[in-house]
């Protein structure tokens, strides 16, 4: 058995299923469908989750490689039930989502960015935010990241 944590809960998977991408394990074995399938080749970023705090495209990580890892998905980003991460609040206030499908991946990518660069400039955002959005919500994603970064700074809240 391979064991790892998803949203602070221990999960296990058989060796035989080791080649299953984390994306499908989350979606089909755990029912965590906030992590989306978009391209299956690690390009679009709709399946972005955190593995040990770093943004990773879940379609490219077989679960067999995850023993002992700690994974956070969009469902676990904010901690407690009903709570929202500052990025989620900013996303709502700026009214970022259009179709909304890519947004959980965008938020997870942005959350990892804020951990490494708490006050990102537009250049940082360009470099780190490579997720695709077919609705073209990029300028609002940018605004929402700046807004959340500002709030995190003034509140001193841990991201």
């Amino acid at each position, binding site marked *: 058995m391979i064991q790892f944590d998803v949203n602070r809960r221990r999960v296990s998977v058989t060796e035989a299923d080791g080649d299953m991408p984390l994306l499908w394990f989350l979606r089909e074995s755990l029912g965590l469908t906030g992590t989306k399938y978009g391209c299956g080749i690690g390009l679009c970023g709709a399946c972005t989750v955190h593995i040990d705090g770093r943004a990773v495209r879940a379609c490219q990580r077989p679960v067999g490689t995850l023993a002992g890892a700690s994974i956070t998905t969009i469902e676990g980003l904010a901690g407690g039930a009903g709570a929202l991460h500052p990025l989620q609040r900013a996303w709502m206030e700026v009214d970022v989502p259009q*179709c909304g499908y890519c947004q959980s991946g965008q938020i997870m990518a942005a959350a990892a960015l804020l951990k490494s660069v708490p006050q990102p400039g537009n250049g940082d955002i360009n470099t780190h935010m490579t997720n695709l959005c*077919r609705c073209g919500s990029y300028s609002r994603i940018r605004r929402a990241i700046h807004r959340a970064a500002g709030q995190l700074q003034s509140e001193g809240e841990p991201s």
Partner: protein
Amino acid sequence: MISRRRFLRAAGLAGGGFALSLAGAAPTAVSAGRGDDAGPGLLGPLIEVSEHGAVLIRVFKQEMGQGAQTGIAMIAAEELEADWNAVQVRRLDFSREIEGYAEEWGRFGTGGSYSVESEWTLMRTAGASAREMLRRAAAARWRVDIRDCIARNGFVIHRPSGRRLGYGELAAAAARQPVPADPPLKHPDDYSIIGRSHPGLENRAIVRGTLRYSIDESLPDMLHAVLVRPPVRGSRPLSFDARECRKLAGIESVFAVEPTARDAMFDKGIPGGIAIVGHSTWACLKARRLLDVEWSPVEGGDSESLYRIFDELREIPDVERQTAGRQLAGFDGAERVIEAAYQNPYMAHGLMEPLCAIADFSDRKHLQIWAGTQSPQYSAHQLAANFAIDKAAITIHNYRMGGGYGRRYFCDFLIEAAAISRALGRKVKLTWTREDEIRFGAYHPLRRDHYRAALDADGNIDSLALSSISTHEWGGGEMTYFYGFNHLHVNSHHYRDSPVQWGSWRSVVKHQDTFSREIFIDEIARAVGADPIDYRIAQTRRPAPDDYRSSHNDSLEAQLPQLKRLQVRVLEAVAELSQWRRPRPKNTGLGVAVSAYHDRSFCAQVVEVECGETGYRVVRVYVVADCGLIVNPNLVRGQIESSVLWGLTPVLYGGIDVVGGAVRQSNFHDMPLATMVDCPEMRIELHDFEGRPPAGVGEFAVVPVAPAISNAIFSATGRRLRGFPMQLP
């Protein structure tokens, strides 16, 4: 006219709530002469007020990111005088109850940017009727004059005494009030919800990852499927070897699915293929790699050769779209003629949520579908025809779509899911892969436009001719010319041998119409040494000939003066917004384009590009829009921002290539989409210059993007780019 008394009906809800529904016989004028559908009974409520005051608004239009459900809910809530924080929106499912009604109204499809425009009257009337009934209930309760009772923010208030009752407390009594025949509608000056930038109603679920798209749905006893389709249209599986697939854990069945011939929009059928069915999508995807299929060889066409074929075909007349004056004879003896040709490749949608549908057709008589579709009603008709069942036996449960952009008006994925479910006698979820979505798309047609203009001695357009050839019958020339001319001939030819399926791609024909027209007018302006905005305004102010006729607008004569005025207004405004006349650095170019989607939604854009040795960058886009009354400004801005990115993608990355009948692209590595780095700065100004009702906003801002970029690149470099992608050497 509609008899409102007949189409709205009130009912009480268990627990003391109140519902206003579409009901009764369909409007007489519309249903006259039909006689077959005498009219359905009560339809799912449009507006529900619970005994706790919660307001539920059901919307005919589907949500795919264009904001229609939030916008339409705002319209109803405005007239209802609801507390916006108490409002929730629900999708209407397609069922036999809705069929009779929606058939009359054509409402149960979402496309063409019509949603807010088409629901404007219905939802205001429904909201106002409910509000009047709540007022009457309060007046009766208090035994006071109704004229002293005002509705505000979820309460009815008795002005003289200051007494107030919440909508929840009044709901049961309101249900017993007669539905007003002609409820008074609010004056726009009194709007308190319309005109505000309320964020999307489903944002919270989206940002928490809890909103269920159809691809996220999981139903009891459901199997999963993928479908391996033939690489070239018309190809069939000669044989397939599924032994290795079947050995995999979780694989239930592998079998051939017959092609489907009968769908009005799939002129060459839906290809069928080999279905792999299992206990998870992942198991099916894994098995897919092990499937070995021998396909029958089919000679398919190449997209690249179509442009050459089109060039040879262009003098063949097909549909005469627009005429005026002496038509082509206007060119006789012309001294100065300018001509140019423009090309549009096939383009795919790239929906972030790949197509997906769950079907339960186990008994082969009743079909239930769970999917995100733009066309539940059209789809139900196609499903009924394909499987020879009654429409009344079909239910479609709608989901928010992870992008639609026209692709989900097509129902191939529903038909496939139903076919697989029927074959298995099980409930099945069919998931498309990204590769499926790109290779089996319903593509923006390939098209070539050839323009000619003869100029008079002052540089004005004397004769104008467009010959357009497209792989779809809609062809070209569906736009009104607001520019002046004396003689006009617009002709379009439908090339029927497209190797791939046609589709409606966000902004559809207007995208191509505007592309060629707005570059061509720029070429003329430059040729006569005029400023591109000044020249557009001057040509717009010239009157159209009295005999100007168009196949898409039969009230041109009445409309043209206003349309010309609005075109001039948005051009003047965008010149000011962009500081058009301010000198820019040498490597920077400005380009302009203007359009009027459906002759109603006006958009002028100025694009600023920076050109360097390695190419160009779209730095800034200035947008002036007049789409009538704005229901939700931030939402409209969002649609414009979105549209700019949509228009930018093919400019930067081009379209779809077809080689030997097969689509060459397969995923985002070879069909890139515009990204954060590509996203220009946008300055957007919204106007309603002449106080018009709301017009569509979902697509109108796409169309000026590409021609404005082409014009900007010309301005910076002197190079004229007339196709996609636009690349500088």
